[in-house]
């Protein structure tokens, strides 16, 4: 029993922290979020060189071969910095290939995802209300070479910057008759439409598929047996987003605590008043608890896969509640300046709105917790 990070893991986290502090302070974050691309190609290349894009990719496919424990530590730091990049999307695309790609598919796509020459993302659902296989309506027409896909995938994170999409589609009438395939952005019939995001450090868009030919070699696993992988990807996505939530919540708390120490009213820093310090203490308790749930979930991914679903549902539900509350607390304790564009606290509020529905909101996950808990 050891609920702590190793020395190497702490060093790795410190390196990520140092990189982000130097290369991506909040002024740079704001600059990138106003760009068309929504991320810095230069930074993306550096991350590839540092080995952080392929942290969980096995070494034989060009990755660092580390676990989810290492990944969530890195994502906490990118979350803290509101680092604008397709890092989570790219990691989940790699996870899809690791989960269900064959050796040939892994060889073909993982090295590019790990070194930064190719950006991947997931394109799972069309509807806004269901992140599970029930939310997949896109029908595949079988043909001699494989399938033909025509339709739209909405809520595709980083759609505009992706070179490769892991697309979920329907192969039959039963709920679980689903499959996943790799669709490259430059294939004939593939286009994307950007959609303005509540949080411009996180990009989203629609993937349009117009008679796109998917060869059999691009289908991950057996066609029609993708449901379990899709469920797993939703859980992994929920854990990854929770990791960025934890970091961002920590960042928002730090900003607000500092403001409460600096701002003097009625002859004293406002952080002396219990009406101010107590909500901050509550936020701290929520963040500590979210971290505990997060590290347990990451450990489950690495060591006890049978516990992933329950751990993912608990952490995403809890993290969403906590971050939603902190978004409000952070703005209110800043007072009027919290309502300005100039102060950074509003960026965290936006992030909390973005994070809430990602891979299932709190209602979705707590319903799952209830069912898994036997009620």
């Amino acid at each position: 029993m050891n609920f702590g990070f190793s020395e190497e893991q702490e060093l790795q986290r410190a390196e990520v922290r140092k990189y982000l502090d130097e290369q991506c302070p909040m002024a740079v974050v704001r600059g990138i979020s106003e760009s068309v691309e929504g991320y810095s190609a230069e930074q993306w290349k550096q991350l590839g060189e540092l080995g952080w894009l392929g942290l969980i990719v096995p070494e034989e496919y060009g990755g660092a071969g580390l676990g989810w424990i290492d990944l969530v530590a890195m994502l906490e730091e990118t979350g803290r910095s509101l680092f604008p990049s397709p890092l989570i999307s790219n990691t989940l695309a790699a996870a899809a290939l690791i989960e269900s790609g064959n050796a040939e598919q892994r060889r073909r796509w993982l090295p590019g995802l790990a070194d930064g020459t190719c950006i991947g993302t997931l394109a799972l659902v069309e509807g806004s209300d269901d992140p599970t296989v029930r939310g997949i309506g896109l029908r595949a027409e079988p043909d001699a070479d494989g399938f033909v896909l025509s339709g739209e995938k909405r809520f595709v994170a980083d759609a505009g910057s992706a070179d490769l999409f892991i697309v979920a589609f329907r192969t039959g009438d039963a709920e679980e008759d689903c499959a996943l395939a790799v669709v490259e952005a430059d294939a004939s019939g593939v286009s994307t439409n950007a959609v303005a995001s509540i949080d411009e450090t996180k990009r989203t868009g629609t993937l349009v598929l117009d008679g796109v030919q998917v060869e059999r070699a691009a289908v991950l696993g057996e066609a029609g047996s993708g449901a379990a992988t899709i469920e797993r990807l939703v859980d992994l996505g929920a854990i990854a987003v929770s990791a960025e939530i934890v970091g961002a919540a920590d960042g928002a708390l730090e900003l607000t605590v500092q403001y409460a120490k600096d701002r003097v009213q009625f002859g004293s820093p406002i952080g002396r008043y219990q009406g101010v310090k107590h909500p901050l203490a509550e936020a701290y308790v929520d963040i500590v608890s979210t971290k505990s749930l997060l590290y347990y979930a990451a450990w489950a991914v690495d060591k006890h896969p049978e516990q992933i679903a329950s751990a993912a549902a608990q952490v995403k539900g809890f993290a969403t509640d906590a971050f939603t509350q902190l978004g409000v607390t952070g703005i209110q304790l800043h007072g009027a300046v919290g309502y300005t564009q100039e102060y950074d606290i509003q960026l965290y509020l936006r992030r909390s709105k973005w994070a809430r529905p990602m891979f299932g909101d709190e209602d979705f996950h707590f319903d799952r917790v209830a069912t898994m808990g036997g009620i």
Partner: protein
Amino acid sequence: MDFDFSAEEEAFRAEVQEFLAENLPAPEARGPEFAAEWNQKLAEKRWIGFAWPREEGGGGAGLIEQFILKQEMAKVQAPPLGSDFMGLAWVGPALIRHGTDEQKQRFLPDLLESRTLWCTGYSEPDHGSDLASLKTRAVLEGDEYVVNGQKIWTTSAHFAKWIFMLVRTESESRYGGITCLLIPMDSPGIEVQPILSLVGQHSFNQVFFNDVRVPVGNRLGAEGEGWKVVMGALANERSGISEATDMERRLEDLKEVARGARKNGRPALEDSSVRRQIARFEAKISAMRLNGLRALTKQLQGNPPSTETSVNKLIRGQLEIPMHDLALGLQGSESQHANQWTEQSLTFHGTVIGGGTPNIQRNIISERILKLPKD
């Protein structure tokens, strides 16, 4: 990061489970002789004073063994390890660290063999949460201290044989003027008056000291060292695992209430809000358990847990109130009748307040961890 226990630790867990299966009768089968027999068996195992060094008669157990023993005991609702809670938790460890050989020989064997009962005198009428301002005075006259003052909220004072208490021997220094004395409760000049709890239960008392004479040999530690004696790092496992296990069990009870309940003419469990409330409790209890494991890890690394206990104490308060609220809500008009839940909905306030109210925990967290200015 590793949440698994070693084979050796799991073997100890199996030993505890086996012992409990063989020796612990069901609650309804526990007769008047039970407590004495049970304590005798525990003493033979050296599970009373389990953490104390073997040379002092204890079990010499490490933190993980203590953790496992407590967890297994809590799972089956076994009575506490030894009937003298205060004596074993506070007095014994303080004697081991600060007592003279004579004091150890005089008190430790009685504690381990359940032949005595201690109460502790900390709080005073005007000094509850602000304990270090205590005013009960002890003045040295020859080789005796003369004690005058009043203690309050003294659990079990009406049948305890001894009181372990803090007195003021010097008024200039707030912490340095406090001394620890061990006083027989039958000393002339001690008067005990009951305080009934809101359910009419008598466990608290006020204790008055009127020229009580205490031999200087009954002082524990040096004069002015009382604060250190009480606050000194205890070797006790302090992850709060018993509390988390207790909450887990009560959550199962709550689910049982929900399974049998109806709301608006339909099964209560068809109501999403009921399901989600219970799911939120479940996630929070997981967080509590995992926070405890984090505190345990910190302790294993040689750092005494400090503010971690405030975090879990606050969470417990966040759980007790809404869990009882829901249980009573599910009972409808039945909640006017006296039953297990309605009774607990009154008594849990004692647990939430004891050891520092939620607002005190929020102060501790915001001042010691977030470093906000003191109120």
